[in-house]
């Protein structure tokens, strides 16, 4: 195929693919799946953090947290829009999310049990997300790459805020320090799982690399993340809950202990601590908002109708 060859050549030359360009169906499907999951993760990801907005212990922290959750809603909007350039509507994507036919990031199936979890999400979860997402700013699909540029900028801001929150706790009262350590204990391993299964078990990786959607292997990114976190944890005065974590002189990086992939698979299968709650809450918000969306649609239709009638009247006058 000439089209396919041109596409492959463009991708290999790092030319951005745009919505009107020809693309293979499999490329489109992969992008839709990945971008939808990414969008869904932003809106489901609001839940664990919103859980603490009403209880934030200072007004400054409350404002920071509100702004962060608002950014996540905004990221959801960018990403649904970017996905719409591939011909799928936001409503369709939401229906699939609510029906359990599209995924969101498994990390959000873990609960936020204390205020320190807000910090741990910022530091570790946003940190892992950025490590994953920075290469996506050079993704071969233009709208996705551009959305990621905006998102990554804001995410790194969130990551610093989370780190700073944990730092304040770690240097606070013994109870606050313990709260921070407990949060890191609970979020560390799930964060490492965010990079996906080990390279030898990763199904779609090779093709995604060829398409320049993905640019680094799961294990590569995971190691990069660990290398960033270890010195940060030291400054924080918090311990990472991995007795096997040690410097590998030869590789010039840190080796970490074995990841509990059984837990990863369980959570992926719907059996995490909050899978049910997250999806039910999302469905409930959507369903109890149905009458509002219907009202907006009905009102817009009436306005269009009125506009047409007025326009028609004007035409008649002009014609008279």
């Amino acid at each position, binding site marked *: 195929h000439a089209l396919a060859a041109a596409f492959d050549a463009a991708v290999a030359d790092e030319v951005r693919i745009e919505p009107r360009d020809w693309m293979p169906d499999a490329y489109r499907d992969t992008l839709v799946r990945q971008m939808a999951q990414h969008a869904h993760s932003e*809106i489901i990801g*609001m*839940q664990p953090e*919103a859980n603490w*907005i*009403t*209880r*934030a*212990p*200072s*007004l*400054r*922290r*409350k*404002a920071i947290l*509100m*702004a962060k*959750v*608002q950014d996540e*809603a*905004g990221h*959801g*909007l960018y990403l*649904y829009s970017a996905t719409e350039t591939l011909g799928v509507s*936001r409503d369709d994507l939401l229906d699939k999310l609510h029906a359990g036919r599209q995924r969101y990031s498994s990390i959000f199936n873990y609960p936020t049990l204390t*205020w320190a979890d807000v910090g741990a999400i910022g530091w570790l979860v946003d940190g892992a997300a950025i490590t994953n997402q920075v290469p996506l700013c050079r993704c071969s699909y233009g709208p996705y790459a551009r959305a990621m540029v905006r998102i990554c900028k804001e995410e790194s801001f969130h990551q610093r805020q989370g780190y700073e*929150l944990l730092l*304040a*706790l770690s240097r*606070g*009262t013994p*109870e*606050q320090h313990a709260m921070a350590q407990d949060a890191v204990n609970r979020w560390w391993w799930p964060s490492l799982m965010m990079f996906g299964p080990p390279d030898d078990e990763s199904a779609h990786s090779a093709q995604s690399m060829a398409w320049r959607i993905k640019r680094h292997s799961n294990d590569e990114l995971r190691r990069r993340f660990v290398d960033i976190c270890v010195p940060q944890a030291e400054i924080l005065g918090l311990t990472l809950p991995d007795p096997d974590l040690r410097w590998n002189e030869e590789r010039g990086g840190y080796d970490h202990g074995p990841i509990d992939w059984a837990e990863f698979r369980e959570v992926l299968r719907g059996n995490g601590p909050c899978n049910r709650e997250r999806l039910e*809450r999302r469905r409930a*918000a*959507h369903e*109890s*908002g*149905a*009458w*509002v*969306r*219907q*009202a*907006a*649609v*009905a*009102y*817009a239709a*009436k306005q269009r109708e009125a506009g047409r009638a007025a326009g028609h009247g004007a035409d008649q006058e002009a014609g008279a």
Partner: protein
Amino acid sequence: MNAALALGDDALVLAQRLGEWAGNAPVLEEDVALTNIALDLLGQARTLLSLTGDEDELAFRREAHEFRNVQLVEQPNGDFADTIARQLYFSVYQELLYGALAEGGSELAPLAGKAVKEVAYHRDHAEQWTLRLGDGTEESHRRMQRALGTLWRFTGELFEPLEGLAVELPALHAPWRERIAGVLGRATLEIPEGADRTAWSAGAGRQGVHTEPFGRMLAEMQYLHRAHPGASW
């Protein structure tokens, strides 16, 4: 600065209520919009409370009867229509109030001058949704009309004189009513009849008398701060 405390409490309490919507809005755009309004109000609250003392001491260590907000802003979110009715009543009031304050030369004028633009956006947001809900479907019309009626009895308190404030609040009542009537008229809604205050609500919030849901709201808001006395965050 009794007046700054009262206006600061209004903004703080409404921000807290709106914060409960995060992640629960009927459309994603409203998650953004409601949180945005909450953030504006929280910013106003922090400026106003800081005129009177330490913002966190004031927000997290006072008992219910020490808060000076009007009862309107502490009313529970209810459904989206209840929230929009509360926003409409309050944002039209706040726009008039900050507009008048900004023109005066009081200590609050600079704050009001900055906030008046924010508040105009809040009012516009509430108006747009009042139109959509009032003139949308039968169900949305019914819900919006009910919400307006439910909250009506908390509106009279907004116009009680407030000591130390450079604006005559009672004088804002007529223009407020006119603007509300205007929006409701365009939205095919009726202005509620019946009393705009109850046996206890007339000016009561400003004197520290609140409603039952307020105590529960405060418990949630203050719990963590109070559970760690003396800690920094």
